[in-house]
């Protein structure tokens, strides 16, 4: 197979090394336990640099172009935040240092928590969870313990069919049975279905608002009442907070638990898939259930408070994704109250501007009506697919050929041939216009010459990836070791 950049293993040559380390002798380890073979690549430092420089160049990032992944809030990641997070006073601190030695980071955690509380209207936050899904899991553990502590046996978690996959997965991991409720024709929670679902076994409901269609659940007050009345708790999946940032707050809507994705709404970079940070906020009711420790202030010093009587314990080592927290704190200072609101406005205007233009393109429809979206919009290419055979996947790959990163596709699952666009506040109108233009062109080609879209992308370094080959047990290859074995076995 043609290789754009060899595997680092393939660059290996005996007798090379990338770091200067003096050798030394050891004797104590019994020979039968001593390691001999170790097939790690042997390369010089310059080769490491070139290899990973090259790999980076083969990768798309916000820094290289627009990245309108719906549900992901791919904002610009300011470097000042990054720079601060890399200070020695962050990176070279040990979690077991004396409280006196870590007043700086505790202060930032404390102040960040206060800001997140004021943004969401929640009482307290734990900064411990490592990502959004981890926050969900933590929230579910809290819900579980809350009911248990009250002697109630509630094991059903209600989740809309439009929800993100992590919602049901997290609920299930925490031991809940997932009850899916349908979306009505307006794209909102079906209130009647909800009413007939809640009951004695209802532990709670997980909801994101604006929902994954970008629509604000305008009956939110009624929903929270229904669930609360049934004895359940309301969980807010904060991945979509961008759509109401600075305008409305989950706490005010009646949510009991909230998680936020700092790597989305608060602009910390996603790093190709993490580290993220999924702080979780609760109201008075659940304050004592948060994971320990939380950061408190005794009027004089910040300290780690381990004394939460009803705590669920810990969900990860130590205290949270510390560098990510610093970035979010720095970001918040760069925006201020007005900047955050402006950010919400910009993302919502960007979305509706885009939706308006796209709704006029042949083959694309806006499912669930033309109500204004918040920070994101889901387009359906179902009509196009039916009429031309060109699918959402084909459109994604065709966009790549126009130098544009595709949106999220095939999500939420309730929309057929879904293209989920989120431009965020940091995208330029010029780039949004490029997408509109590109979709028009793709539509034109689909109706005139659909086959050529099946072969996209053509202008990328590599062609369309063969997913079947990738996943077939016979050809599947998950490591270099497996690759070598398969070569040997002639597969």
């Amino acid at each position, binding site marked *: 197979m043609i290789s754009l950049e060899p595997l680092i293993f393939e660059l290996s040559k005996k007798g090379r090394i990338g*770091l200067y380390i003096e*050798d030394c002798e050891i004797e104590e380890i019994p020979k039968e336990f001593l390691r001999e073979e*170790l097939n790690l690549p042997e390369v010089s430092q310059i080769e490491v640099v070139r290899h990973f420089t090259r790999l980076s160049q083969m990768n798309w990032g916000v820094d290289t172009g627009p990245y309108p992944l719906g549900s992901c809030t791919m904002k610009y990641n300011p470097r000042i935040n*990054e720079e601060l997070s890399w200070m020695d006073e962050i990176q070279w601190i040990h979690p077991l240092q004396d409280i006196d*030695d870590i007043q700086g980071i505790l202060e930032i955690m404390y102040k960040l928590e206060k800001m997140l509380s004021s943004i969401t209207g929640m009482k307290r936050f734990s900064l411990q969870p490592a990502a959004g899904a981890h926050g969900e899991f933590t929230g579910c553990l809290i819900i579980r313990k809350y009911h248990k502590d009250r002697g109630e046996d509630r094991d059903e978690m209600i989740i809309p069919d439009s929800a993100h996959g992590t919602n049901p997965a997290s609920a299930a991991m925490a031991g809940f049975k997932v009850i899916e409720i349908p979306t009505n024709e307006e794209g909102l929670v079906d209130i009647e279905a909800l009413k007939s679902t809640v009951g004695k076994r209802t532990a709670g409901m997980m909801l994101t608002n604006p929902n994954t269609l970008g629509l604000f659940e305008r009956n939110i007050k009624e929903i929270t009442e229904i669930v609360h009345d049934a004895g359940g708790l309301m969980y807010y999946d904060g991945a979509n907070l961008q759509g109401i940032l600075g305008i409305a707050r989950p706490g005010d809507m009646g949510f009991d638990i909230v998680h936020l994705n700092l790597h989305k709404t608060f602009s910390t970079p996603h790093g190709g898939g993490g*580290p993220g940070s999924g702080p979780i906020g609760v109201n008075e009711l659940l304050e004592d259930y948060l994971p320990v420790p939380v950061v408190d202030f005794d009027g004089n010093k910040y300290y780690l408070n381990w004394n939460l009587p009803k705590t669920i314990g810990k969900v990860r*080592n130590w205290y949270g994704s510390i560098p990510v927290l610093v970035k979010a704190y720095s970001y918040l200072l760069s925006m201020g109250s007005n900047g955050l609101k402006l950010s919400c406005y910009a993302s919502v205007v960007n979305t509706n501007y885009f939706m308006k233009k796209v709704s006029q393109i042949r083959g694309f429809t806006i499912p669930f009506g033309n109500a204004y979206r918040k920070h994101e919009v889901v387009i359906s290419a179902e009509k196009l697919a039916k009429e031309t055979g060109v699918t959402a996947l084909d459109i994604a790959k065709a966009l790549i050929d126009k130098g544009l990163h595709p949106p999220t596709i095939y999500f939420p699952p309730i929309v057929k041939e879904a293209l989920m666009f989120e431009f965020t506040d940091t995208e330029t109108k010029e780039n949004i216009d490029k997408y509109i233009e590109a979709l028009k062109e793709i539509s034109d080609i689909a109706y005139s010459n659909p086959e050529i879209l099946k072969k996209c992308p053509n202008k990328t370094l590599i062609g369309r990836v063969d997913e079947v080959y990738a996943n077939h047990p016979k050809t599947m290859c998950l490591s270099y070791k*497996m690759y070598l074995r398969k070569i040997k076995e002639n597969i």
Partner: protein
Amino acid sequence: MDFFIHPYIPNALILKEMLKEVGIENINDLFNDVPKVNFDLNIPILDEYSIYKEVKSILSKNKVYKKCFMGGGPWFHFVPSIIKYLITRGEFLTSYTPYQPEVSQGVLQALFEFQSMICELYNMEVANASLYDFPTAIGEAILLSSRVTGRRKVIIPSSIPEDRKSVIRNYAINLEIIEVPFLDNGCPDLEYIKKIINKDIAGVYTEIPNFFGVIDFKIKELIEIAHEVEALAIIGADPLLMGIIKPPGDYGADIVVGDGQPLGIPPAMGGNSLGIIACKNDMRIIRQMPGRIVGMTKTIRGERAFTLVLSTREQHIRREKATSNICTNETLLAIAATIYMALLGKEGIKRIAKRIFHNTQYVIKRIKEIGLDTAFKGLHFRDFTIKGINIKKLNKFLKEKEILGGREISENIGLFAVTEIHKKEDIDEFIDLLKEFIRRN
């Protein structure tokens, strides 16, 4: 509200113009469906210089120790300068999970290399692209063993610290956890396990080195005991230790988990974590693996390519039946670890491991010379205990000398560590201070 010029919001001053195209005059019309509640966020807006000054001045209240002997992790290993440079290149840093392989080959190939290197370290054939951290990786491994075996009990060493247990308990919330007592070397009592093990056990978990730094040379026996009842053997193995001792894969381990932080990642108050999980080439296990996995494949044009595979296991497809809820993981730190392992390579990992081991033997020898001892018997790697002195007081004393002391295991037992960054002089100074401390107390 007025729209004002802001460096991160390019359209700030043309929003009105764009609104017109939407057919709206007042921006608030876009929020008609949102209940109005008055609140004040009360967050100031600062320019970049002021942010820099503000955050720096807050952070200056953190103390960066020049020397650290704290055991139990995270550890102060050396982080080569090139790592930060490479992982903060925008193309890596600002990218999302590589859903579109054609424009994400960089992250995908790096992750494939990560998986591959992890496999080499442990002699396993499959690894995923990372989990949150070590304890959650143990938790996921335990859940995995339960899914594979259909059983609901697991055995873990009682020696692991309460923090870690708490996470495990939360992950295994629907399982029953049995703790094994430990011997005088801190390793699990195999006789005890033999007694209690049966076909209800999904997995048996243990660690090398154990929490007290002792290398457990009975891994092989433990794995055999587990396999006798068709339970899975799960080994938590330090990646750097693998430079000098035979890896769990050599003994038939089913799942290996690890803490990736020693692989070129700064401790960051415990906030930079990298959970490692690997398994052997067994489709029963592979199909139940949690998290993202990258596979090598080809394109329709015939080029070699990389892509996320086995996504039918994952939450976005399988929803409540997914093998885990994990979505965002620790990719960037996995790339850091990949660069670290590439820099060191075969020879470097061996040299680092030897140096750490050498330092550990040296410090323990010196400790014994001054009449102290470790709390546990056996060969140590990096971590070691000191018993018989008041650890709180010792730490206070060391702090005065700008040294970060050990982790309190009990009043008179502390957990310490030396790594490759400790020079002989550093260790000698540490011993001298211990001597002085004993003399004074």
